[in-house]
């Protein structure tokens, strides 16, 4: 077992365990913190795939900014395990059915995708995740979608300002 494999399994176990904890935790703040752990594990996977830029941007944007805002909201709303509304049993049943269907779809997707079975993921060799290649790809091949998404962000920002002004 090489060190890469060892790290891969470690990160995978960490990611799955944290993801389960996100769902299982009673306290919403704990859930958010476990979610941050998931992001860390996924960033670790990115680094194993030699996509350092993606890894660190994942941390900065998701773990560093978005999750902080999540924490803000949860801390200010003072959601505790006790204040969590009691869901009735029908709602729980509906949730189980919906989640089960989604899981079934995912499993069948993975099973049917033959291409996935034949591709061995090459660890630590890919070049596309490096910032130089990523930048070139974004600004040469995908420049139109990239700019459109930035316009989308701009409109979201303007919208936030407009709502803020109204209040």
């Amino acid at each position: 077992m090489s060190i890469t494999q060892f790290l891969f399994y470690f990160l995978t176990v960490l990611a799955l365990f944290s993801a389960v904890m996100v769902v299982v935790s009673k306290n919403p703040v704990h859930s958010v913190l476990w979610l941050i752990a998931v992001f860390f594990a996924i960033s670790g996977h990115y680094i194993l795939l030699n996509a350092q830029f993606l890894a660190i941007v994942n941390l900065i944007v998701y773990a560093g900014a978005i999750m902080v805002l999540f924490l803000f909201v949860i801390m200010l709303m003072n959601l505790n395990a006790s204040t969590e509304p009691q869901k009735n049993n029908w709602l729980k049943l509906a949730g189980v059915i919906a989640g089960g269907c989604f899981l079934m779809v995912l499993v069948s997707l993975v099973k049917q995708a033959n291409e996935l079975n034949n591709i061995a993921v090459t660890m630590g060799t890919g070049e596309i995740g490096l910032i130089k290649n990523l930048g070139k790809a974004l600004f040469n091949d995908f420049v139109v979608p990239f700019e459109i998404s930035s316009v989308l962000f701009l409109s979201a920002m303007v919208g936030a300002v407009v709502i803020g002004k109204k209040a």
Partner: protein
Amino acid sequence: MTLLAVDWLLIIEKLVLIAIIVFASLGIALYTTFAERKVAAVLQDRPGPNRAGPFGLLQPFADGLKLIMKEEIIPTSSNKALFVLGPGLAMTAALMTCSVIPWSSHIEIFDRKIDLQIADINIGILYIFGVVSMGVYGMMIGGWASNNKFSLMAALRGASQAISYELAMGLSLIAVLMLSGSLSLKTIVDGQMAAGSYWNIVYQPLGFIIFFVCALAECNRTPFDLPEAENELNFGYHQEYSSMKLGFYLFSEYINMIMSSAVMASLYFGGFDVPFLDESTLAPNIAAIIGVAALLTKIAIFIFVFMWIRWTVPRFRYDQLMNLGWKTMIPLALFNMLVTGALILLKAGV
């Protein structure tokens, strides 16, 4: 022997380097607390701590001993696990920054070239950003887990302040990155050291000022020390903490200060470069030692300026802080970025 087939020598070398740098930063932070008190004293016409040891030099150890001996109090209504996690997280995030700072060039021991930088990753600056954004969690978790209104308010203030100033900091950095064409701190420093090139401060005075102000805000130093504004929040986010847990929070602030000084020195003041000295003519080991000394001197100067500002400028009000961050710093940083980009294009002759 194929199990974990790695260069063991490299791992040992890096571990030794990590240990040295971490303990050196802790030691420097220890004496930075002493320096803070001394600087405050001389700026206010006082002698400062002068009882423990000659010139009071043993004072930080006395302070540390006092902190360790204090009773460890965990409030009963707090969230215990997170209450303990908070200071640890703050300290870890503060110390993690040091891994991408090039402390000097390389030294040679037994024909082995050892870089005095823990990891020369090609996204060094982004790594620092990631770690800085993690530092917010130490504050937030600690403030929330204390189960105290004042702590929570202070933690929220601190976090929103950190997020706001991170933006301006990143934008001011982009100009430097455009100049050097790399995200690796080592490459940036090498670019400034090369013959015929000047330190980045010559090209980026405005960017440096923005970065410096944001660094003050990120380290929660006066005039941006709102998370611990005594007059309205008692003691801020670490109000419920005592003993070494409080010490960790206070210490991590000083380590953050050292690290941001090191980053500023590397980005704008040539890192371990000594002005008007050609390092390549010296033996590598001597050059490395001179480099470390040069970087430490620059860090010391920055820390002095941090303290000097702290004992001069009063604290902002919170709305003033947010106005400065969003309405002044970010537009200025954008302007700086645009002008730099335009000048680079002009020079390239497009």
